[in-house]
């Protein structure tokens, strides 16, 4: 496992996408995407449903092979060096699912072993402690609420101390308390552990409270990619990120 401290390399690109194109069923869903996410950022990837956000995250997590172009994560090509990429990423899908008949501990231990974690028990304890979620280890996943599943989902994604964490619509289906808890965890992961966050979302309020930079995807095309600070400066007359987003979409 790469133990390079995340904070030391802050600012260097951790996600690099060049001319990334993907097509299936005769339809192009990603059109030559180009962007970079620097290490240490919380990157919000915005777009309507069907814009291509999940396809992009699937390519970056090596679950999907793009039709053309390149994607590099933590310096490794997603097609040529997928295992090197996988060692350095954490992934939380939109609808996270587990082995419901197994306990939280058994699920986490399994995924930790798949990631090559050496001291599984210690890492599970540390991770659940970080998430303030100790005490549920021996409950079966089928008894968990959506919010609890999301936390276990987050635990499995950070158990092996990844450099970059991919979150696909992480707040989907959560209640306001769950959303706030998740936001706090994301911010702490970024600040305390230096983990870069790449987050697919369409919740603009969350982007405004969490992200340091944004990319906007419209029908498979990246129409905007800037820091949140510059975005707010670029649109000084707008009252909220929501109205800025609507203006971007209308301009396309």
């Amino acid at each position, binding site marked *: 496992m790469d133990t390079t401290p995340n904070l030391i390399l802050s600012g260097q690109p951790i996600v690099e996408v060049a001319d990334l194109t993907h097509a*299936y069923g005769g339809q192009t869903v990603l059109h030559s995407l180009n962007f970079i996410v620097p290490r240490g950022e919380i990157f919000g990837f915005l777009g309507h449903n069907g814009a291509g956000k999940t396809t992009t995250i*699937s390519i970056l*997590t*090596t*679950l*999907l*092979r793009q039709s053309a172009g390149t994607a590099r994560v933590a310096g490794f090509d997603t097609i040529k060096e*997928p*295992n090197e990429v*996988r*060692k350095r*990423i954490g*992934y939380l*899908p939109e*609808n*996270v*699912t*587990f*082995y*419901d*008949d*197994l306990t939280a501990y*058994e699920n986490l*231990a*399994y*995924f930790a*072993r*798949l*990631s*090559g*974690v*050496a*001291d*599984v*028990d210690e890492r599970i304890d540390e991770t659940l402690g970080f998430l303030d979620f100790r005490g549920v280890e021996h409950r079966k996943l089928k008894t968990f609420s959506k919010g609890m599943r999301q936390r276990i989902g987050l635990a*499995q994604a950070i158990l092996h101390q990844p450099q970059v964490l991919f979150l696909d619509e992480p707040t989907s289906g959560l209640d306001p308390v769950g959303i706030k808890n998740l936001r706090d965890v994301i911010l702490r992961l970024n600040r305390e552990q230096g983990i870069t966050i790449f987050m697919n979302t369409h919740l603009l309020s969350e982007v405004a409270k969490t992200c340091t930079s944004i990319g906007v995807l419209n029908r498979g095309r990246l129409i905007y990619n800037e820091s949140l600070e510059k975005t707010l400066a670029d649109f000084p007359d707008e009252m909220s990120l929501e109205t800025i987003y609507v203006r971007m979409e209308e301009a396309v």
Partner: protein
Amino acid sequence: MSARLSPVSAIVRNELRALTRERTFTMLLGIFLAMTFFSVYIGWSTRTTTNAIYRASVAYLGTQGATHVPPNPLSGVSPLLIFDNMLIYILLVGALLAIVIGHRSFIRERKAGVLPLIFARPVSRPQYILAKLCGICLALAAIIGATYIVSALAAVFLPALRLTAAEFFRLLDFYAVSLLYLCFFAFVGLLFSVVAGSESTTLFLPILVWVAAVFILPELTLGSNPVALLNPVTLASAAPDQGQFFTVMRAGLGWLSVGQFYTQSGLNALGAADGGAAALPALFIYNGAVAWAAAAALRRHAGTGALTL
């Protein structure tokens, strides 16, 4: 404390745990042990009844002053043939149960939706399939191992049946061949659970392969009806001249008849037929081919759609 495991070992362990939690393993073990019990009892009962009739006939012939007494028809028959029903049970029921094990192995994870979490980790798809195959083999080996022990104990304790050490080894050989045959169908179950789109298709296609391998192909290539093919003693006898059609079919399709390969190898192990040794490599080759196909199929699934149901 949990020791560090390789990803393959972790998947194998998870596979075995899932099988036991679903009670599939216990159910299959129970079925196999019941099949062993019935098979051995029927075989032993047939043998002792035949011997009793022979002895009664000899006594009767003696009272009639017969000078020539024909030999016992079972005197030249391998005592291991009391297990011949096991061959039929494994050929039919065992193969279907093996398909269920292989099918559940991948479908369980597709339905649970955990495959994206697995493949976003440093586990290659061929590694994953290898681990699944190992898990399936171990589960089947445990079932077959228990079946062998019960069979061997039955052979030790049943009256009027004495097996030599060599015959115990032949019995072990028979179960090893059976394991190979069961693995083939489990691998077929796994293969189709990877390539097919819907859950019903993933189960229907391997059953189609089973029907073809066990019934249709032997019938086409040997000209024997399926019921006759289930009788190993009939199979062991020389096949009559069946004409040009069957000769051509045998040459063209005989190599696909996995059920026939198993029957030959199994009968050979039980000492009821010769020539099964040539069928054994075929079973190995088929297992390897299906395992490779499953790994290649999963690798070819570039999309994430195939990872869920």
